[in-house]
């Protein structure tokens, strides 16, 4: 936990320092006025990539959790495209993504609470929608008691 806090602190400091926490900077990037954000995304992923590539060769598992070192691989399906597109519209409209929104709050940009509130509403709505199938299944299953 302390390590996760430290990691989060460095992560958030980086988002503040890179100005990615500022929606205007993201919108300038998306409208081709300032390409600097490429360095944030690629810089970050290259640093992460080096660790993801190196550590599994050095050790089998993480010292604090015993969790095996692996890469972040998720299965591909239509949801990646559908969700990515919805996220893209939201990102292009607001200029804010989740991590940058938390950082933006830390910088003192209080209007970002509109965006964070929206994110929770959106996450809740899709969660209720997608829990429906599971709820139907368990309700339909005969009960023993």
């Amino acid at each position: 936990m302390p390590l996760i806090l430290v990691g989060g602190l460095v992560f958030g400091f980086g988002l503040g320092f890179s100005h990615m926490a500022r929606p205007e900077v993201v919108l300038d990037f998306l409208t081709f006025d300032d390409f600097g954000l490429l360095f944030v995304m690629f810089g970050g992923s290259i640093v992460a990539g080096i660790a993801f590539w190196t550590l599994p060769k050095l050790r089998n598992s993480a010292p604090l959790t015993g969790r095996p070192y692996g890469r972040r691989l998720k299965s591909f399906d239509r949801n990646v495209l559908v969700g990515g597109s919805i996220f893209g519209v939201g990102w292009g409209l607001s200029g804010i993504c989740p991590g940058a929104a938390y950082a933006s709050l830390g910088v003192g940009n209080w209007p970002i609470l509109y965006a964070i509130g929206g994110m929770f509403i959106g996450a809740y709505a899709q969660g209720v929608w997608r829990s429906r199938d599971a709820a139907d299944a368990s309700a339909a299953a005969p009960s023993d008691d």
Partner: protein
Amino acid sequence: MIAGVLADLLGAGTVDVLFPNGISRYAIGGLLVGLGTVLIYLGTGITAGASTFLESTLSYVSGRSRFTQYRPSRDWRVVFTLGIIGGAAVYALIYQGDPWSIAGSAWTTEVSPWRLFLGGILVGIGTRVGKGCTSGHGICGVGSVSRTSLVGVATFLVVAIVTANAVSALGVGL
């Protein structure tokens, strides 16, 4: 240093056009974002993304299966998010003076509340349906050379570029 190399490659005028605010703050910030991710990975083996926090935190108040599946990770995700907020606050204290005073804050966004709110709703839906956001897919997934994440990043980046330009072309103010 990077700016110098790019200036040699592209010509100094091009660099000024492409990067009107310079490169160093972006490059240094990006390295720190990567470093934060690596610190967590080094100790725990976790590839941390930011958007799962939205759902895992909802599991504190909702019993829906979509949210409760994240119960095991919800505590550290709160810590991670508090860290992000705190780290940005440290940045603001060092570089911006008095970030917690609404009047004295160095900047608050000019983007209008409806754009933040509506965009936020779509971000909340899209990142969760699409299995990741700019940190999960963008940093950890691309760093893992995951094809799913590369496709995911390409999708949201292209759609966001189209959206931002369309909104701007329609003359909608910030």
